[in-house]
């Protein structure tokens, strides 16, 4: 009897914690979203009311749009830079681990401290970003205080007026994009490097004999062979970018979530509703569940595809 039970005694501490603080909260969050719920506790049953209000909530859709902008810029930029660095890192032997380290350090350092540093870098008067632009004779930008879209700003220079609705992410959000990409490059470079090392050297030798130059080799050989890694990086970066919070909170919020609310992303909106002045835990929970569905969908796609991909 004891022998049969004994393995469970070993896993029990972990199981208790995981069930109590991972599993139950997920179930709880569904329940919370169907009831009125504030800091004092449960209120009356309201059914799908929160979800109905969500579809009509303009701010919710804006935060979805901002998150979408974030993903659509961060993911391709991260993939390009990471693959770019990994290809070069794969060529060298000396100082390889040194460079790997340099690229990786932003990823392990505190996002809070980094956000503060970048906020100061993007300071209009005393920041490094404008000082850097100044070298190229570019006029100082307002960065984190700029609510105009980057395309609006870009075409303003040519006297073309792009309405804000199609102006793209605000410059403030773009600053957040830069920070997010900068921080995720190191991690993904290492992932790509592992992928590149699994491609047999003989393929390149064969390509060389066939007279393919380096650029052709990259596009015809490396890129297709590395595509499983690219898919993994694509999905993982998308999933994590949906969860961006600290950069936004520290660089542009609170109280409003960026200039004219243009950096308000979905997790920031959850935070604002649940733990800001409103303290509407029920509504915050409903938003979180929408995010959960999105991320769950992405995760399932990733797992499904991972099985189909052959190296």
């Amino acid at each position, binding site marked *: 009897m004891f022998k049969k039970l004994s393995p469970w005694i070993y896993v029990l501490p972990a199981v208790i914690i995981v069930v109590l603080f991972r599993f139950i909260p997920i179930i709880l969050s569904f329940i919370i979203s169907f009831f009125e719920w504030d800091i004092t506790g449960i209120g009356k049953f309201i059914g799908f009311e929160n979800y109905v209000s969500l579809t009509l909530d303009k701010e919710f859709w804006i935060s979805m749009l901002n998150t979408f902008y974030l993903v659509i810029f961060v993911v391709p930029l991260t993939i390009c830079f990471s693959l770019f660095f990994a290809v070069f890192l794969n060529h060298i032997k000396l100082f390889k681990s040194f*460079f790997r380290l340099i690229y990786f350090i932003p990823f392990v350092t505190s996002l809070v401290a980094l956000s503060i540093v970048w906020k100061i870098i993007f300071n209009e008067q005393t920041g490094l970003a404008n000082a850097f632009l100044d070298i190229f004779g570019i006029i100082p930008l307002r960065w984190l205080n700029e609510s105009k879209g980057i395309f609006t700003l870009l075409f303003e220079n040519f006297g073309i007026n792009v309405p804000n609705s199609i102006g793209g992410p605000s410059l403030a959000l773009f600053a957040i994009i830069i920070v997010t990409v900068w921080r995720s490059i190191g991690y993904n470079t290492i992932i790509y490097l592992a992928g590149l090392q699994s491609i047999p050297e003989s393929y390149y030798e064969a390509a060389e004999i066939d007279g393919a130059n380096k650029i052709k080799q990259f596009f015809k050989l490396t890129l297709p062979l590395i595509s499983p890694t690219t898919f993994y990086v694509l999905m993982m970066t998308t999933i994590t970018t949906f969860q961006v919070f600290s950069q936004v909170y520290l660089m542009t919020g609170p109280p409003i979530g960026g200039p004219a609310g243009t950096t308000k992303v979905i997790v920031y909106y959850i935070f604002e509703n649940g733990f800001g002045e409103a303290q509407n835990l029920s509504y915050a929970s409903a938003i979180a569940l929408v995010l959960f569905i999105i991320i769950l969908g992405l995760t399932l796609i990733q797992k499904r595809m991972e099985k189909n991909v052959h190296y």
Partner: protein
Amino acid sequence: MFIIKMKGKIMSGNKKTFLKNSFSYIILTIFGIFMIAPFVWMISTSLKSQLEVNKGHTGFIPIEQYLSYDDGKTVWRVSKVMIKGDSTVVNLIDDTGKIVYPFHTINSTQLKEIKRIKLHFLNFKRVFEKVPFARYLFNTLLVAFTTLFGVLITSALAAYAFARMRFKGRDFLFYFFISMMMVPQPIYLVPSYVLLNYFGWINTYQALIIPWIANIFTIFLLRQHFKTIPQDLIDAAAIDGCSRFKTLFQIILPLSKPVIATASVFSVISSWNSFMWPLIMTNDPELRVLQVGLSYFSQESSSQTTLLMAASTFTIIPLVILFLFAQKSIMASYTSSGMKE
């Protein structure tokens, strides 16, 4: 003839490799500078005087340039108000930018232009005077190491069972854990808050520690390692009358020191960097961890850029050092885990 030709080709091939590599190094260095520049600038700004920063000195070297006046006791910074013949009316300013003696009239020849490199290490001291950083550090270390202790115990036990025991429901439990690992943090913030509030744990250390003392990733990391330990060794221990529990602590764990070290660094890094959870689960200033304290500091004194940079440097450096010690294994486990943050 043919051989010579071949030789020539190989030679030029080597040369090409070398050239190509030097190109790689140039590219990697240029981008490496961009990657590391924010850190360098952070450290350099943390050593500048606020006055220089406010003047718009954005350089990487903490140079300061100002008019000064030496009254015999102190070298003052000076801002000119007006010039009256041979004498100048000035404000005497101290290092922090406060005007100590306004409208002081001095001889113009006594004014001296100073340009020098000066490192204001005092910024770090002033951060500690301004905000209770020592307290924040204590909280962070307390949370990080208690969590670590819990993580190691729960993970070692669970990993041992997963790796070395057969029991009903093991595979189910395994997949259950994997699926729980995939749930991102923002999802369970609200319900966890409700739950912890129900327990009366809001504004307690428990709220920062207990939910984190089981780390699924660490369980898997240890499980993978435990599986590689030869069964013969464990059988031999059993024959010698070693109980399962004893086998774990006296045979398996001593053989797993490197992987335990990796898991520990991993755990400390994530506790140290954890922000959103402590931000939400505590609001008592006494309970602020470093990240939360830093965040409040940045909101309260956003114009004190040099102090903010000093505080950031202070928050980042210990972790970078820790990371440097274990970088290879940490990078490997980060990338194999497929998890971020």
